[in-house]
Each structure stands twice: as C-alpha cells, then as structure tokens.
C-alpha cells in the first residue's frame, strides 16, 4: 500500500478527534539546532476545512486496526473498513515534510489498539522519540495515550509530547459498558491523575531556585466526550467535565457531536449530529472555566439539559432576573461576568475605562457590544431599564432566533446585526 493510500485511510480514521489545539506548549524553537520547529504562544490554524474546523496538526492514526469494539467508532473491530498501518518512519517523514512547508504546527498521533496497550503505546512513542531525538524536531506533538498502558510508557510519552490526552468518550461507566465495552472510566481517571502528578512535579522542579532544568514534560492534558451517542444529560456531561477540570486540572474537555460514520453499528443507529447541542456545551464549558459558573447553575437536576434555543448565560439570566439590571459603573467583576453578551475581554475594558469615566451607552457602543442583548440587563449613566422589561414574559421571546434560522444555520448563533447598533446609536444622538 503506498503512502498516499495510507494517509487517506489513517487521516480519515483520525477525524473524529475534535482536538487540534497547538497552544499552551512550553516556549522552544529551532535556533541553534539542526532541525525545525517552534512552540509557545498561541496556536496557529494553518487551514480550515469546509466543516469550519481548523487544521493545525497533522492528525493521523498509527494504525486503524483495533482490538476494541466501540460502537460509535469507525475503527472498531466489527467494522469492515479498510485497514492500514504506518511505520514510525513514514509518520516521521510526513510530519517533517508537511512541517517544512508550513502546512502544520506539528503532529497529533493516536492509534487503534493492537496486540496490547503497551505495544501500541511503544509504536506511538517511537515516532515522537525519532522526531525529537533524531531530527531535533521542536514543533508541537500531541500524543494520545491509553489508560491501560504502563505508567513508565505514559511518562515517556509525556517527555516527548507537548500535550497528552486520554479520551473519556462517554461520561458514565454505564454508557461505556453498552457502547465501549473495553473502556473503563475509573482507569481513565486514574491515569489522568498520574499524568497530573507528573505535570505538577515538573512545574514544582522548575520553580526551585538553583535546581538544574528538569527534563521536559507535556504542559497539559485534554480529553474528549462524545455527545448524542448515549442518553447522558448535559448535567451529567458537564458534571463529568467539571470533575476532570478540578480533580485532574485538564486544559480542555472537547465535546464531539456523534456524527454519521461509514460502517455503522447495529447497536448504535446513525442520526444527524446534534451540532447545536455540542455548541451549547462548549458555551457552558466556557462559563465553567472563565466565568465562575457552577454546573448546577447551568444544568440542574430539575432541568438537566441546556436550552438549545438560547445560549446558557442568557438562559441563566432569564431564570435569575432579580440579579438585573447590573450597573456597569459599579458592579464588581464577578457580576459583570454574569451579564449576557458581555465577554471576559470587554469586562476588563469596562473595568479599565470606568476608573476614569462614568460609562454611557455610547461608550458601550464604541466597544461594539451586542447592545440589543445587553440593554435589558444593564444600567449605565444614561440608561435605566424598567424593571417591567425584566419581569415581562416576552423577554425570552425577544431573544429567540426566528425559526428559519434555527433550521438553516442551527449551530452558529446569528451575529448581532448592524441594525442593532444603529438603533442604539440613533436613540441616543
């Protein structure tokens, strides 16, 4: 089988991993060395495919042969998909060739499980080792690890990689038992705990004065959860994510809408990908990580699923109207962060500017805020919304997108129209 055919099969097999991030690595570059590569700072998306997803890393599997039988996965052993297998040298060469042409930031390498967890891990590590040690490659490497692999091998993977990850796949063991009978949530978490320990250990070593620089180790770990393949509610999914963020300090949890695959399984019938739900989960995830929300505030036992029609912050605000309007000239940061339509950056801008001026609506318009969304929830020097507006039943209806937009562009909430700004502007001139 030639390299083109292998690349077709093993890229196709890798596309269901959502992560392509190349950010958050330690700063390193190729100066003074013989090779190429640099990391640090923000990641770069070198291309975008028509699914709107960023192409940052060359994402491939070592092999798509697999002992496991995960029913959402095209590579499961029961699938009749064509199998292929790269040699470590082939992946090394492809990575370097692509990198030198500036197609990619580096390599995302995963694999089907063949023979055993350790054997598979060794193949994956061999690619990273050659890139780093033989070719002095200093670009980004993300290695997928297997929870059942030995701790020594996972530690070795972490030495060569900028990021390592283990996919949770489904948020409860019950779901895994049905759909991914080889996977075990407790073992995954245990492995994540070990990785966290390694990351923390290196961090502590680095901060010791006068100590020699410790050997490199991945700066972060991430995971992925499949959405819509099992019956888990958003509360369960977000609860799992929150636990992983707090107990294992994951950099990212990716949510991947279960989407049709060739070779479907009779245990898991195909359906359209729940893209809007995936989008809402990402929004909720952001609220957990950057806006100080608690899972129960976003998805509670009483209402365990996110409102698909409204973003979770707006949804929360409509359920907690007594909190509003918030005075943007006086409210503390944590309250500003709760205002629908106001992001972290603009909260900082407001905090900066209000030290010197009393903010008026025109100031907020100049920050290009989503005024229509904001207005019912804020007060400024020249704007005091009637409590009436906040009490009215029609407030929710105001924010609902027209039904046809829900169908056509269902996972991209419409950007505020320029007319929104114009109406505000003309109102105050």
């Amino acid at each position: 089988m030639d390299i083109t055919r292998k690349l077709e099969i093993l890229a196709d097999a890798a596309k269901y991993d959502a992560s392509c991030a190349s950010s958050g690595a330690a700063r390193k570059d190729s100066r003074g060395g013989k090779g190429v590569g640099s990391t640090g700072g923000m990641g770069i998306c070198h291309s975008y495919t028509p699914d709107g997803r960023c192409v940052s890393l060359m994402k491939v599997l070592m092999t798509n042969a697999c002992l496991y039988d995960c029913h959402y996965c095209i590579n499961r052993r029961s699938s009749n998909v064509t199998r292929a297998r790269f040699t470590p040298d082939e992946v090394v060469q492809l990575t370097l060739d692509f990198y030198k042409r500036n197609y990619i930031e580096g390599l995302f390498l995963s694999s089907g499980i063949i023979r055993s967890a350790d054997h598979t891990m060794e193949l994956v590590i061999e690619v990273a080792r050659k890139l780093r040690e033989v070719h002095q490659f200093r670009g980004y490497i993300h290695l997928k690890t297997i929870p059942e692999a030995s701790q020594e091998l996972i530690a070795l993977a972490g030495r060569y990689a900028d990021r390592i990850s283990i996919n949770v796949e489904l948020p409860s063991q019950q779901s895994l038992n049905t759909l991914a009978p080889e996977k075990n949530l407790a073992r995954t978490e245990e492995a994540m705990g070990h990785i966290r320990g390694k990351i923390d250990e290196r961090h502590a070593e680095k901060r010791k004065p006068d100590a020699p620089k410790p050997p490199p180790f991945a700066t972060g770990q991430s995971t992925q959860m499949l959405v819509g393949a099992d019956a888990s509610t958003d509360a369960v999914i977000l609860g799992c994510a929150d636990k992983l963020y707090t107990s294992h300090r994951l950099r990212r949890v990716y949510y991947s809408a279960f989407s049709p695959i060739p070779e479907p399984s009779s245990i898991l019938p195909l359906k359209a990908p729940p893209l809007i739900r995936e989008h809402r989960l990402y929004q909720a995830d952001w609220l957990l990580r950057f806006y100080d929300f608690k899972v129960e505030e976003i998805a509670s036992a009483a209402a365990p699923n996110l409102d698909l029609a409204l973003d979770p912050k707006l949804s929360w605000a409509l359920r907690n109207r007594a909190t509003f309007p918030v005075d943007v000239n006086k409210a503390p940061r944590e309250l500003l962060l709760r205002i629908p339509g106001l992001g972290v950056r603009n909260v900082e801008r407001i905090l900066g500017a209000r030290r010197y001026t009393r903010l008026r609506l025109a100031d907020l318009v100049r920050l290009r805020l989503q005024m229509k969304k904001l207005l019912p929830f804020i007060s400024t020097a020249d704007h005091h919304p009637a409590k009436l507006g906040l009490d009215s039943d029609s407030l929710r209806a105001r924010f609902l997108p027209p039904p046809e937009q829900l169908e056509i562009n269902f996972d991209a909430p419409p950007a505020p129209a320029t007319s929104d700004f114009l109406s505000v502007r003309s109102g105050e001139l």
Partner: protein
Amino acid sequence: MRTIVIEPEYDAWRAAARQLLAQGVSPEEVLWTDDAQEASLFVGEAPAASAPGANAIKVPAAFMDLARSVAAHTDARRWGMLYRVLWRLTRGAERHLLAMATDRDVRQLQDWSKAVGRDIHKMHAFVRFRLVGTDAATGREQFVAWFEPEHRIVRLATPFFEKRFAGMDWSILTPYECAHWDGTRLHFTAGVSRSSAPDEDALDDLWRTYYRNILNPARVKISAMQSEMPKKYWKNLPEASLIASLIAESAGRVQGMLGTEERAAKPAPKNAYLKSLHAMNQSEAAAPNHESDPA
C-alpha cells in the same frame, strides 16, 4: 500647519514625533504624509533639530508596542492619529488614556493594531514553502514562499519564521518586501512579482490528500471556514482548489453513510490482552463501592 514627510516606517514616525513633541507642536498643526508625491504639493517644513532634553519624553511602554503595530497598517491617517494620542498621553496629561477602550482615538488605534495582528497571524498560518533545491556546500534545504499581506508586516512577521525554520534556508517573497534566512542572518530586499516564486511543490498533492480526508462531511459549515480563511487567501493555498468539490460531494457522502446497512458486533478475537481487559472490567464492575458515575 506644517507637513511632515516620513518613510512609512515606525522609526521614522518616532523620530519626527519626538521632535514635534519637544517643540510643543500640537497635533492640529501637523499634516503627516508618507507619500513623497503628495507631499511635494505642500511646502514641507522639516522639523528643527531637537532641543536638549527632548529625549526625556516618557510614554507608557504599551503605547510604543501599539505604535509599532499601528505603523504597519496601510491607512494613511495612522501617523496623525498616533501623534494625537501621543500628545494626549503626554502634553494632554491623559496618562491613563490607553485604559480607555471607550475613547474614539484609542479604539481606532486598537482596531488598526488588531488588523495588523490578524494579518501577521494569517501570514504565519498561510505561508506555504516550496522546496527549490539543496545548497551544495551546506547541504541545507532551500525553500521559497509567496505571500500577499494586506499590511506592511514583513519585518514584524518574519522573526517567527526565523525561530521556527532555523534549520533550513528560506525566502518569503511579497509584493513590497522580501525576507531571506540563510542560517545566520535574516535580511530584507525589495518586493517582487508573483512570477518570481514557484507555483507548486511535490508534496502539495499529499497535503491535499490529507485535507480531503480530514474533513467530516456530516458537519459542513462553510461560513465558519470562510470567516477564518477568507477567499482572498485561497489563490495561494494548494489545498483550496479542493474546497468546491468537497462541499459539492459532502451531502452525497452522508447519504451514503445513512444508507449503509448496520453491522452486528463481531465476537472478541483470541487475544491475551483483551481477555485480561475484560476480566479487569468485570472485577471492577463487581466492586460494590466503586465510584464510576461522575455525576
């Protein structure tokens, strides 16, 4: 009113702005231009030699960074706006001005800076190197790329490539300025036309193979792609030639998947590792107090 003609570079603006500020020339009295043709229509007045102590002007470091970035923008009004904000920060006694994202002038500078930053980021992303040969003496591979930035960013954007591609020789050609790296020195030459750069690389086909296969046809979302990779970049990206056909065939591919007969699960093969895994899972399931549901 005096007209200040400068080279379209940050350093030239900075030198002129320093002198004007030292002389107490207010922004309303200055017309900035970096176009020699246009400047000849006015009676230009060169700024007088700087007074002693002119170097003592203190401005926030953040302003210098902002100015360096704004200087690379192509908007002709940038010099005047930079000087006005500099004036306000110093003579105007508005030292806090940069904290006022709500100020029109600050907002304008930030917008320009953001546009330049985006242009730099896109250059880092969308430059495509083509292998043209190997240096016989050093054995280093030599690459050439063609890029068309929107702003004058070559000097700001290329140190990144020096760090990243130190181990190969490369040139990035653009219409107004070219950058070259030979392993020891990054240097710049005048702009060239597109015909000076190679059109293809032997690896482009393999790259297109990757691009075609990493797409998930069940999630097509063209607007998201275009907002991050606007069409103006497509002509210099080898993979972009596939976009139209990939979009056209996606719906059919999904229909094909949905129409595929579902497969029943195969029994587990005889594999020692798999057996041990199943045994482990069973014993864990049997453990009464095992916490497996994170919710």
